[in-house]
């Protein structure tokens, strides 16, 4: 089997691999152990564990119907999470995604209401998303303004434009053939037909991030912009295109939203940005940039989506969902740092005992694992 780069997580390997004991990571682990224990792989375990739990213990969960409803619900977040992962890895953020989706939706409504064919309507809406993303890219990448502040501004601006475009109207009479396509399933599997497209987009983003020179550059960029410039990474261009990608995919999410609910309104998808960011961060992407993986982010979205769905099946209030989401999010970042603190402390204690014989500075004493060392 080939030895994949550290960020790349072929899901099959993870699930079949045996889990080794947790090992502190000061120098860094190598090879398989590294992949099996990385932050985003843990997320995938959590997702699988939860799905198994739900399938066994939640009545009615284990059915194709669940798959269908669940996936239909998470698709917008899933789509947006993909470019968001890349954006956050470069150390930036995009809070305007949901507003772009809303703007797209509003535009679709107005254009369709004005009698355009559905083809041009979709194309123009998608272009609007591209332009919105380019506008963010211009401000953040080209002018170098802080993305958190900029996208709070465009969050208001794009949602405002959605209101300007469609006002308080709602357009609902989209072609039934199209709207029913957006809720249709592939045969008896329960998997929505549109998932094919979503998976395609996911593969594109996964490959770009993990298997291309461009993706390598994004990680370096997230850690240190200056160092990235010195090795010829085109920082401005890379960030600009990421925002364009983010805008485009948000537009896709807006189109999906409009056609799935067959309702074009200015407030569609509002508040989705926080859900997406929470899911992506839960999936192991570091808010400081430089760390993260597409499979992890997808697992984050699916985990929150699945919990949400099971709670609804059990008719448990959304109150619980938001508390669970918040707690998971905090636990996911606090747990590793507590874990690290404890292992560091253990190490330190061990070393204090063995120190008299110690020499050779800078040399690493234990090659891979503190666990082995204990023998």
């Amino acid at each position: 089997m080939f030895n994949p780069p550290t960020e790349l997580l072929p899901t099959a390997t993870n699930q079949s691999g045996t889990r080794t004991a947790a090992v502190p990571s000061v120098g860094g682990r190598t090879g398989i152990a590294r992949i099996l224990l990385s932050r985003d792989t843990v997320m995938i375990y959590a997702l699988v564990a939860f799905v198994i739990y739900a399938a066994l213990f939640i009545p009615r969960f284990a059915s194709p119907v669940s798959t269908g409803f669940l996936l239909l619900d998470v698709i917008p977040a899933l789509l947006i999470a993909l470019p968001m992962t890349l954006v956050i890895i470069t150390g930036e953020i995009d809070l305007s995604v949901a507003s772009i989706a809303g703007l797209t939706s509003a535009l679709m409504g107005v254009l369709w209401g004005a009698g355009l064919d559905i083809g041009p309507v979709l194309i123009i809406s998608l272009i609007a998303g591209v332009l919105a993303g380019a506008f963010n890219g211009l401000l953040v990448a080209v002018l170098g303004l802080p993305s958190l502040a900029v996208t709070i501004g465009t969050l208001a601006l794009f949602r405002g434009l959605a209101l300007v475009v469609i006002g308080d109207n709602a357009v609902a009479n989209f072609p039934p053939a199209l709207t029913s396509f957006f809720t249709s399933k592939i045969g008896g599997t329960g998997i929505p037909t549109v998932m094919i497209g979503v998976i395609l987009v996911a593969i594109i983003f996964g490959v770009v991030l993990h298997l291309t020179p461009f993706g390598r550059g994004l990680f370096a960029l997230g850690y240190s912009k200056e160092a990235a410039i010195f090795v010829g990474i085109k920082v401005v261009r890379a960030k600009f295109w990421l925002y364009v990608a983010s805008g485009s995919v948000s537009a896709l999410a807006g189109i999906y939203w409009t056609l799935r609910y067959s309702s074009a309104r200015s407030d569609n998808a509002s508040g989705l940005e926080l859900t997406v960011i929470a899911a992506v961060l839960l999936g192991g992407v570091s808010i400081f940039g430089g760390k993260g993986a597409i499979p992890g982010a997808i697992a984050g979205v699916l985990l929150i989506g699945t919990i949400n769905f099971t709670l609804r099946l059990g008719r448990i209030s959304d109150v619980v969902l938001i508390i669970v989401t918040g707690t998971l999010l905090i636990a996911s970042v606090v747990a590793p740092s507590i874990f690290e603190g404890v292992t560091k402390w253990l190490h330190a204690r061990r070393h204090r005992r063995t120190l008299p014989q110690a020499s050779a500075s800078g040399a690493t004493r234990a090659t891979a694992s503190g666990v082995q060392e204990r023998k």
Partner: protein
Amino acid sequence: MTLDTSPPATSETTTRRANGFAAVLRLREIPVTLALIALVTLTYMANPLFLSQQGVKDLLLNATIVIILSVGQAMVIVTRNVDLSIGSILGIVAFSTGTLFVTFPGIPIVLVFLAGMALGALLGSINGCLVTVAKVPSLVITLGTLYIYRGLNNAWAGGTQYFAGDRPDSFGALSVDTIAGFPVITLIAIVVVIIVAIFMASTRPGRDLYAIGSDPEAAKLFGIPVTRRVLLAFLSNGVLAGLAGVLYASRFNSVGATTGTGLEFDIIAAAVVGGVAIFGGSGTVIGAAIGALLLTTITSALTAIRVDKFWQQAIVGLLILAAIVIDRIARIRTAKKLRLSEARDV
């Protein structure tokens, strides 16, 4: 220190000339203030009622709660952190205020204020502890507590809402009565702004907050008690959010499970518009307060001059972007002047 050698004579190569441009950098709130003045003047010319006694009172009332929240947020942002959970904190405190009045009729109002601020302090310091002790980014932590606090508020309040009628009239009167044209709660806000402004500008712990935001690593090396200070910022922000929650209950008709939802970005935007750098280290609470005043005033102004309500949000978005761009231009120009003056100087 008893250093007794006389200093070596000043040499040409190391002479650094004083430059006055630095001062400009520290006046980041000037553009907002000008914008605010322009906005008020123009709107007044279009609709004189805008500055009628009632109009001014409304403007101040609208801004009061946002001002208090942005001042608190500014303290946190200055330390290179952020608190997204303030809307949820405000909600919980507002609801608990209603609960207090209903559960203990006749409870002294001062006690209610103290209780609200204490609750805010508790919630704020939970944020602070998680951020500092676990050493994890505040954006993630407070996004988490945004959900958790909101969930708790929902669980606690359920469908219960407390209305104006549930609270003593004297409490409601705080947001009605005026002293010299200023509503009482606005005066409270002004006092808060002044206290926090003095704290931030002229006390050692206040300046420490700037140092921490400016370079957290250096702050640690230097021996600034980073953990304690950041905790202090989150705690103060909690206290202010708590105060805002109590005032919210005084001012608005009902408080319940959803009170304060979705405030976070507006508040951060107000601070940013007011010249607080989103990555910490610079900006003032006065600036943040003016930013808040500007953002709330613009909504009223647009209504007063009958701008289509559908345009209002877009205009607010543009304003936020304009503020960021102007701030950047000012910075670049100053940096350029610095560079040129030094180049001539070296």
